[in-house]
């Protein structure tokens, strides 16, 4: 593992994929509009929920907006990195081009997860940050170091969980060849992350924190943001994130044993 080599390779990836994406300029413009409208739509939906009700699941409107902010950032990250790369795995396996990836003298998971980038997701990340800054003002949150580090830790854990979930499903392509729809299922479950975990019934809460820790990935960082998170929840998220990351890595190496190249 040579960190400098990987950084250099990543810089090349960034350069080539940005250059190829920027060829479709109108496409990027349309995607940016989509990102803005999508945020407006979610806030609109949230405002319907709060129309006649002071809180849902104990969260007030101003507090629930934080969840939207974090969701938007995570969704932006998904659109920038996970979605373009991990849907590519399906193509690699169908067309047998995974052979070329495996032959390269760098780690295959690194190559497959970071090769491409979709710049239109950047705006979504920025929108999320602006919404968070706005929320900090209306919720009167004071910035301090411990709060910053804790929220940074929890958000990076959320990113790891999200990545592992995506990567896990994409890896199963090695057996099932086509997993577009499994990704659609994940996407529709991820939709739940826009709302506080407490607003669901008990059984769904269990489902979304034990089986697929989706509500988890936005609710815990938001609680940290508001300053009422317990330490055990943060610890739990760190543990879950590392378990997910390690398992996804193991699963990839395991799956590769079953890879038989297409058309050969």
């Amino acid at each position, binding site marked *: 593992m040579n960190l400098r080599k990987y950084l250099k390779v990543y810089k090349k990836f960034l350069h080539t994929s940005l250059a190829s994406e920027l060829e*479709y300029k*109108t*496409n990027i413009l*349309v*995607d940016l*509009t*989509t990102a803005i*409208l*999508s945020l407006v*739509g*979610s806030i*609109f*939906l949230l*405002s*319907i*929920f709060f*129309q*006649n*009700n002071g809180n*849902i*699941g104990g969260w007030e409107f101003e507090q629930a907006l934080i969840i939207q902010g974090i969701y938007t950032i995570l969704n932006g990250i998904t659109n920038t990195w996970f979605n373009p790369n991990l849907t590519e795995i399906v193509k690699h396996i169908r067309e047998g081009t995974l052979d070329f990836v495996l032959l390269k003298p760098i780690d295959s998971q690194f190559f497959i997860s970071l090769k491409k980038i979709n710049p239109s997701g950047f705006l979504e990340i920025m929108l999320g940050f602006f919404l968070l800054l706005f929320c900090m003002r209306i919720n009167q949150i004071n910035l301090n170091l411990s709060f910053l580090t804790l929220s940074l830790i929890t958000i990076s854990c959320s990113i790891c969980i999200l990545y592992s979930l995506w990567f896990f499903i994409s890896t199963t392509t090695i057996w*099932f060849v*086509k997993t*577009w*729809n*499994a990704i*659609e*299922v994940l*996407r*529709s479950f991820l*939709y*739940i992350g826009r*709302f506080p975990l407490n*607003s*669901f*019934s008990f059984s*769904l809460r269990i489902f979304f924190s034990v089986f697929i820790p989706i509500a988890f990935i936005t609710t815990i960082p938001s609680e940290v943001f508001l300053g009422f998170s317990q330490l055990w929840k943060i610890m739990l998220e760190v543990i879950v994130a590392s378990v997910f990351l390690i398992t996804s890595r193991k699963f990839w190496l395991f799956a590769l044993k079953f890879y038989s190249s297409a058309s050969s």
Partner: protein
Amino acid sequence: MTSNLINRKIFTLLKVQYSNMLEYRVEIALWAISGIIPFFMLNIWTNNNLNESINISDVMLSRYFLCAFFVRQFSVVWVVFSFEEDSLMGKVSPYLIQPLNPFFRYFAQHVAEQITRFPFALIIGFFFFIFNPESIWIPNLGILLLSIVSTFLSFLIQFLIQSIIACLCFWTEKASSIERLLFIPTLFLSGLLAPVVSFPAFVKSWIYLTPFPYLIDFPANLLSGNETNISGGLSMQILWIFLLFPLFKKIWSEGTKKYTAMGS
């Protein structure tokens, strides 16, 4: 004679596509599962007693969301993605030579997929009734037929809109980003996530002039027995089809003139 020919063509197309779709049963089952977002929404609504403000009882609301799920299952359209792939791969060229508009092929594909998906949707509906036994009801035959008609009209509207966007492929090569843009209002304004009755007054004042509420909200209200203006809704659906169809024909004939075969 000609009608016989058309009938035979359509029948053959349907048969071919149905057997094609049956090969991907697992995928279609996953596709059906990915449509269960309305149930999560229902959970938020009932768990926080949000329905008190819009005067819909828990039972009626759960019927509404179940119907929204069914309407969505049978009106979902993905022409843009098929057409974009076919046009990028140069598969459209042989279709153009045949004496049949290629969109008939896509249309048959969608209908065949709906037939394949029907049992899976029924199973999901069955599970819904197990968890919510109080919401079981049997709509009368007339209403059932009307709602099937209006669901089909909703499917037609979406099919036409997407076909128009798909034709943009002739100019821009990548039309799916425009589709994603249009999906946002479809998601938030169609009544999939919240019934249109619950929208604030300033949205309700204009939304009934757009096609969106007729995509899911109207057929779902009709089927679930919630209050709705039946003749008004149906005539608006037909009106939109009459508006969109000439537009599609125009853009199709312009587009085929512009067509330069990819990959040749």
